């Protein structure tokens, strides 16, 4: 029975989640650092924009992303004409959509991590003659490992679990955009409950393990520091 199961949707889901987490980490690190350090008046606007995907229905977000990336829009037309990249109903489009959808899950833990760091510790680094970049990598990041772990793992897990946005932007093209959550939906639709059960059990197990790893890591870190 197991041999007959097609694991490609899982492979696609994990590939999508890994790429999304990597891209978002690079984008969110400077953004979260900026938000944690600034007192600018535009800070609440940026924070609200970043948090939007948490409250927006995935269909609304998916619709706008679909609209923005389609060939009829300037962005979609630009990418297709100059780079030959189709941004809707393609894996690339899924990555772009996932980056919007999972942005708050990367930015918020990182920003919280930066904000809970002892401000004097960062200032001590500046006084020691170190610039902002060296302070970020030598002092800030090593002292907020639980926040880093939470940001990366939750973003990864959230991307694996997304459904509405990927269905709207990517559709269900086998080997290309048919990720695990979409595959489960299709199995239920065609009443193949056995495969749906297996797929769902795998997703459930992985999600639990991912969350468990975050909590175990954070508990270990807290114990090590004697907090």
């Amino acid at each position, binding site marked *: 029975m197991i041999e007959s199961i097609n694991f490609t949707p899982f492979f696609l889901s994990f590939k999508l989640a890994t790429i999304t987490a990597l891209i978002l980490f690079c984008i969110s690190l400077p953004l979260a650092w900026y938000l944690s350090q600034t007192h600018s008046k535009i800070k609440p606007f940026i924070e609200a924009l970043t948090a939007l995907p948490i409250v927006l229905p995935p269909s609304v977000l998916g619709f706008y992303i679909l609209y923005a990336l389609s060939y009829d829009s300037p962005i979609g037309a630009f990418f297709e004409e100059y780079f030959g990249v189709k941004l809707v109903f393609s894996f690339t489009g899924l990555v772009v959509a996932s980056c919007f959808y999972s942005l708050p899950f990367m930015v918020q833990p990182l920003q919280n991590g930066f904000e809970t760091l002892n401000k004097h510790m960062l*200032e*001590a680094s500046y006084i020691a003659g170190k610039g902002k970049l060296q302070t970020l990598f030598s*002092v800030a990041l090593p002292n907020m490992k639980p926040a880093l772990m939470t940001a990366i793992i939750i973003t990864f897990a959230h991307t694996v679990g997304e459904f509405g946005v990927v269905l709207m932007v990517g559709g269900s093209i086998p080997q290309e955009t048919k990720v695990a959550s979409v595959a489960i939906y299709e199995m239920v639709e065609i009443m193949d409950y056995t495969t749906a059960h297996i797929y769902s059990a795998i997703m459930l197990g992985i999600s639990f393990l991912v969350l468990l790893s975050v909590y175990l890591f954070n508990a270990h870190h807290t114990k*090590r520091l004697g907090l």
Partner: protein
Amino acid sequence: MIDIAITKELDGAKGSMALSFKVTIKQGEFVALSGKSGSGKTTLLRILAGLEKAQGEICVADKIWLNSTTFYPPQKREIGFVFQDYALFENMTIEQNLLFVAKDTQLAQHLLEVTELSSMKHRYPHALSGGQKQRVAICRALMKRPKLLLLDEPLSALDSTMRTKLQNELLALHKEFQTTTIMVSHDSSEIYKLASRMVVLENGAIIQDAPPSEVLLEQKNNTLTLRAKLLCIQETATQPQAIVTLGQQLTAITITKEEAQHLSIGEDLLINAKELTLQAL
């Protein structure tokens, strides 16, 4: 020589106030900065460190750190700063904390020896006591061989035994390095022991600037004068008793009923005693 003439508008607990600080500090001088909380002491240290901006001028050994056209960031100012909460780099061992500031292993080793921390140089800050952490913070501040050492109530969180020990270490380090130092402190005995000059701030302005002996010693006409705070007044069968705090000590003083009527709880008092005897404990 350090010339400081700065002003800054501050938002204090009682509304806004102007911090105005103008002093010239000689090379190697140990200045104690005292005053009520909210008088601008910590802000002043932060301005000197370049962590906060202000108007005016700061000139250290002929180098302009601050004026209308120049603002040196903390990285360019040759300062050491000891924070009240230590602010050690938790991800680094004691030795790494020191070497992060300057890759001078000899100096690091020497400082750790003076402060009796050599045996624990591979430990992380979370495995240290408060006193040990503060010694690491002092060593780290000296690693850059700073022109100006700023200490923000460095010993306030420690018990009296550890305080005395660290005061001696600070004194030894100051003697050796001759670093011009400004230390915020509320502890009279600490100021008297360490500082050669005492500046008292009130509402952002200097109200006293003199040697600690002149500011702190209160003796007139061979009469001992003590500062105390009235804790409560107890009625007894005969005469009322005022319970006052003298530093860490509580004392009961018999007063007249008339005196009791004029005193209010929490009031600062001056106690005069004419007959004085000293006895070893």
